[in-house]
Every structure is written in structure tokens, then in C-alpha cells.
């Protein structure tokens, strides 16, 4: 796959091993600027491994990854990237405002800018009322909202979300979907892994389906589904259960 200038994430023939087993096996894909890209696959397919490799948290055996044209080994590749992990925990002894200030500082955002952005972000995710509470006692839904706020504190161009709706109630999911659509309208690129196929169908421009570390299908969602199949869930189940490899 030839690198493209409009690509935000470029993965070429990526192989990552866990305990002498291929967690990713020759994965290649490209995420274009401004699109919402859904990354699908059953449990253990390698979605989180791919995300960790893109972010430089783990290292490939072979192949290459670029994020905004830079290798994940270079911390600068993450300068304009926001990450929302699947299962996040934050420093229990800090308040919401302190957490956002801390991550803003780590991202190199000026003090004044952090102060300006925090109230707006807290309003966006609905945490304004608990901004001075320590996060140790927060529910999973509230923690997920902090995750989103910290991912946006430096106004990133690209968002990488690992199972963002996991553990959220239907109302929070709807709110998150609304936020993601708003971010897409602002021109942000969003790459997210999910099991929630209805969310993916509603939000994504392109998808990739992964099974046992290998890419089965990839491309614009309508192209992947084809003319005969209009339901992503049915298509996904058939693809995973069928002899896709």
C-alpha cells in the first residue's frame, strides 16, 4: 500500500508478536484525513494491539506504521493525537480539573489555554458539576467522560478511540455519538475500534474487519457491504464465521 499525503495513519505489512504468537499478521491499512474509520473484529482479533502499536506503546516485529507521517517511536507523532482507552483509570487522588490540567501540560498546551479549554470540555462531556471532586469514586461512565475530555484537551487533529462506548448506558452512548459527529464536522479524523456495530454503521465512513490478527475486509463502508448486503451486523457475522481467510 503506497503512502498517501492525505493519510493520517498508514500501516504497512505490520506483524506484532505476543508470546511467540502473531497478534497481528501482515496488517496493512490507511486512514484518510477527516474520516471516521471503524476498526472491527471479534475479541482477540488484534484491534487493541494495532492501536497500541500506532501509539508506540508496543513494538512491531516487522512492517511499519506512521502517524501523521512520523514513526510512533517519535513522541512528536502523538502531538496532535487524542487517545481514549478501552478501560481507563485516572489518578484517584486528583480532581477532574487537576487531571485535565496535568494532561494539558504533558501535551504542551499553554497554562492559559488549558484554563480556557477545561470549562468548555467539562460542559461538552457533562462533568461541570463534579469538576472539583477526586475521581477515585467515579462510575465507569463518568470515567469514560474524563477519558474523552483528556483526549480532547490539546485539540487534536486525530482521535484514536478503543471501544469508546464500552460500559456506557444508552443515553451516554447517544451523547458520545453526538459528540463524535460534532468532532467529525470540525474536520477531525476519528479512528475507533468497537463491538457496537450499530454505532459503526451510523458513524463511520470506512471500516476494516480484523480476524486473528489478519485483515479480512477494508474500505468505505458501502463498498465493503456491497450492493447485496445492507446490514453491517449480518455482514460482520457472516464474514467472521465464514471462511474469510
Amino acid at each position, binding site marked *: 500500500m503506497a503512502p498517501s499525503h492525505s493519510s493520517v495513519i498508514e500501516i504497512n505489512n505490520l506483524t506484532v508478536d505476543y508470546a511467540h504468537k502473531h497478534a497481528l499478521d501482515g496488517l496493512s491499512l490507511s486512514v484518510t484525513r477527516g474520516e471516521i474509520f471503524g476498526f472491527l473484529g471479534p475479541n482477540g482479533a488484534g484491534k487493541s494491539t494495532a492501536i*497500541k502499536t500506532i*501509539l*508506540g*506503546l*508496543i*513494538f512491531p516485529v516487522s512492517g511499519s506504521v506512521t502517524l501523521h507521517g512520523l514513526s510512533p517511536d517519535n*513522541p*512528536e*507523532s*502523538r*502531538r496532535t*493525537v487524542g*487517545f481514549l*482507552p478501552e*478501560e*481507563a*483509570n*485516572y*489518578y484517584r*487522588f*486528583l480532581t477532574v480539573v*487537576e487531571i485535565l490540567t*496535568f*494532561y494539558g*501540560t*504533558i*501535551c*504542551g498546551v499553554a497554562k492559559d489555554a488549558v484554563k480556557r479549554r477545561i470549562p468548555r470540555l467539562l460542559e461538552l462531556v457533562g462533568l461541570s458539576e463534579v469538576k472539583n471532586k477526586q475521581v477515585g469514586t467515579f462510575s465507569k461512565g463518568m470515567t469514560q467522560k474524563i*477519558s474523552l475530555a*483528556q483526549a480532547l484537551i490539546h485539540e487534536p487533529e486525530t482521535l*484514536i478511540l478503543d471501544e469508546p462506548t464500552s460500559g456506557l448506558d444508552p443515553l451516554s452512548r447517544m451523547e458520545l455519538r453526538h459528540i463524535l459527529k460534532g468532532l467529525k464536522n470540525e474536520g477531525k479524523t476519528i479512528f475507533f475500534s468497537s463491538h457496537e456495530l450499530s454505532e459503526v454503521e451510523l458513524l463511520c465512513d470506512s471500516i476494516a474487519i480484523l480476524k486473528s490478527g489478519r485483515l479480512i475486509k477494508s474500505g468505505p463502508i458501502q463498498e465493503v457491504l456491497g450492493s447485496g448486503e445492507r446490514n453491517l451486523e449480518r455482514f460482520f457475522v457472516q464474514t467472521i464465521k465464514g471462511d474469510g481467510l
Partner: protein
Amino acid sequence: MRQILAIAGLLIKEIFRKKDFYVALILCAVILFYASQLQFYNVENITRYLMEIGLSLCFIFSAVLTVSLAARQVPSEVQNRTLHVLMAKPLPRLNLVLGKFVGSLFAGTLCFLVFYAVFLFFAFSKAHAISWPMAGQTVYLFFLNLMILTAMTSGFSYTLTVSANVTMSLIIYILINAYGATLKESSAGFFWFNRWLAEGFYYLMPHFEFFDVRQRFIHDWPPVSNKLVGFLTLYAVFYSAFFLMIGWLKFRKKPL
């Protein structure tokens, strides 16, 4: 630099928002209070002995708090997954290593200063003459001592579990403080292999006892020369850099 200071600030908040420090502070104050109430406290030699106990308490409590803080940083952040979020930011791994080190060192030093203030209050209240230059030098040399201990524990934290790291760091610290000065001489009668091991340990491990000026402080001896303090500063910086480099080499390609 902002990243390093932000991480360091986080550790300082951590130590003062958890109970460990306050438990140690209350314990330290209670022991010093009861010691100061003893009738024979006015006997000069007993006073000196009790001052030694007080100063030792300050050193021990600060060292234990610092070791437990530095040792749990990376392993517990990996377990809680807070490290994933942090390292997904544009944060070089070296800055994390330095931030954790600086934070643990400053947090430990602040704890020491609080314990030390309590100690000085009791010492001063018993009208014992205090040599302020010596009191200041004690703080500085303990800071250097803590610097090596923090760097060692931080360096080990990229490899060892929290409990293994705390145990190993404290054993090394206590052994060197207790036997560091006499280890080489006492190994002279050992079987050659044991002597070789003891001498290797003697030359490889940092000598924490070099920084211990309790006796000078208690007996009102003059402070050590500036030249020696300069040498000890270089010694502490060298060992700290050595341990931090070990930690960084381990962490720079560690999968998270």
C-alpha cells in the same frame, strides 16, 4: 522540562494526599514527644542519645516513604492502565523516567523536612544548643543520600514488582548504612570467593553511610569541609545517573 515538572508535581500531590505520610508524621511526633518527656532527658549524654534516635527516625521514615513511593510508580501505573494514557501523549520515555525520579526525590525531601522540623522543635525545646550550619548540612547531605536511594528504587521499578523492589532497596540501604564502612575490612578473613563477592559489593554499591553526619550534629562537631561536600555531590550525581540510566535502558523499549 514542563513535562518533567508536571509528573513530579503529581507525585508530590500523591504523597501528601495519601495517609502514609500522616501516619509516619504522627508516629514520629509521638515518639519524640514521649522521648522529650523522660526525666533523664536533661542529662547531656542521654539527651544526645535521644537526639540520635530522633534524627534516625527522620531518616528512616523519609527513606521508607520515598522508597515505597518510587517503587510503586511504574508497576502500579501499568496495572491501573494510567501509564497507557500518559504514554499515548507526546511524552518521551526519558521524560517519564526523569519526572518519576524528580517527583519521588522532592516528595521524599519534603517529607524529611516536615519530620526534621518536628525533630528540631523538640530538640530546641529542650534547650540543647543546635549548630545551625550543621543542621543545614545534615539536610543537604540527607538530600544527596535520598537522591541515590530514589534513583536506585526508580531504576529497579522498571524491572521488579513493587514488593520485590521495596524489599531489595531497603535491604541494600540498611545493609550499606550499617556495614558499608566495615565491609571491606571484615571480608579479609573470608574464603576467596566470598571475599571477592563482598569486595565487589563494596565497590559496586553506593555508600549511603558517606552522607550520614548524625554524630557530627549530635556532638556539636564542625560541619564537613565544602570540598568534601562537593565530592559527595558528584558521587551522588554519578550514582543517581547510573541507576536512572539502567531504568531508562529497560523502559525505552518496554511494551506497555
